[in-house]
């Protein structure tokens, strides 16, 4: 089988993006769980978990944005050949 990506830098870039995508998926699953648990407790009449859950969700969201910026930087570097 021939190597479809002969450029090693490109291969590294793809591997990095794959790894980051995996981490993003994990973070998103955690965020979905946090949201569903918060909704569950809120609808059961308990609002005290809403604020900590929002803080955790915000932190996860910021992490996702940081990872996305990393993906863009890797992509840009590989495309420009740096």
């Amino acid at each position, binding site marked *: 089988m021939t190597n479809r990506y002969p450029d090693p830098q490109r291969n590294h870039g793809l591997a990095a993006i794959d790894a980051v995508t995996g981490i993003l998926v994990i973070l998103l699953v955690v965020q979905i769980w*946090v949201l569903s648990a918060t909704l569950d407790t809120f609808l059961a009449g308990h609002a005290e978990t809403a604020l900590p859950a929002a803080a955790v969700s915000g932190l996860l969201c910021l992490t996702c944005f940081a990872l996305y910026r990393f993906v863009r930087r890797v992509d840009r570097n590989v495309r420009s050949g740096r």
Partner: protein
Amino acid sequence: MDDNSSLTSGAANQSVPLWRDEFSVSQSGERYVNRRQLAKFLTLTSLGMFAGNVWVVVRSWFRKTPVYGRTVVARAGEIPVGGVKLFRYPRPGEQCIMVRTSEETYVAYSQKCTHLSCAVFYSRQDNRIECPCHQGYFSVQDGSVLQGPPTRPLPRVVLRREGDELIAIRMEPEI
């Protein structure tokens, strides 16, 4: 159409077909772009989840604390020991059930089963509150679940005795 295509593409480069000229992204490049787009999609979904959490916070800030009125449910001695009286509290559409468990003890609960809202009834021979729909059983002492699909206890109506009158003053937990 083929003639036109060959004319336009042929003017630029004879070896490059028209479709490649117009769709200049290679397959490997397309895969690369798709991964970046997937990362972008996941990040925006994450933002959506965060927005959902913020919405819950905002809703909890503007949540109104229920105000319960006082409703005279019955007069003491009006029902016999083991007897039942139905009443509506805190709103006209909310049916509740009061049971006299002993000479001096009265308990009252919402009549809506916490599973699927069927009307529960008091079983005197088993001394428990039962839901006929899915055989959910609740303790008559505190409304806790004894058996069946319900996972939450029956909301309790807090009663106060004032002279000869039994008065409903609030629900626990708040509904």
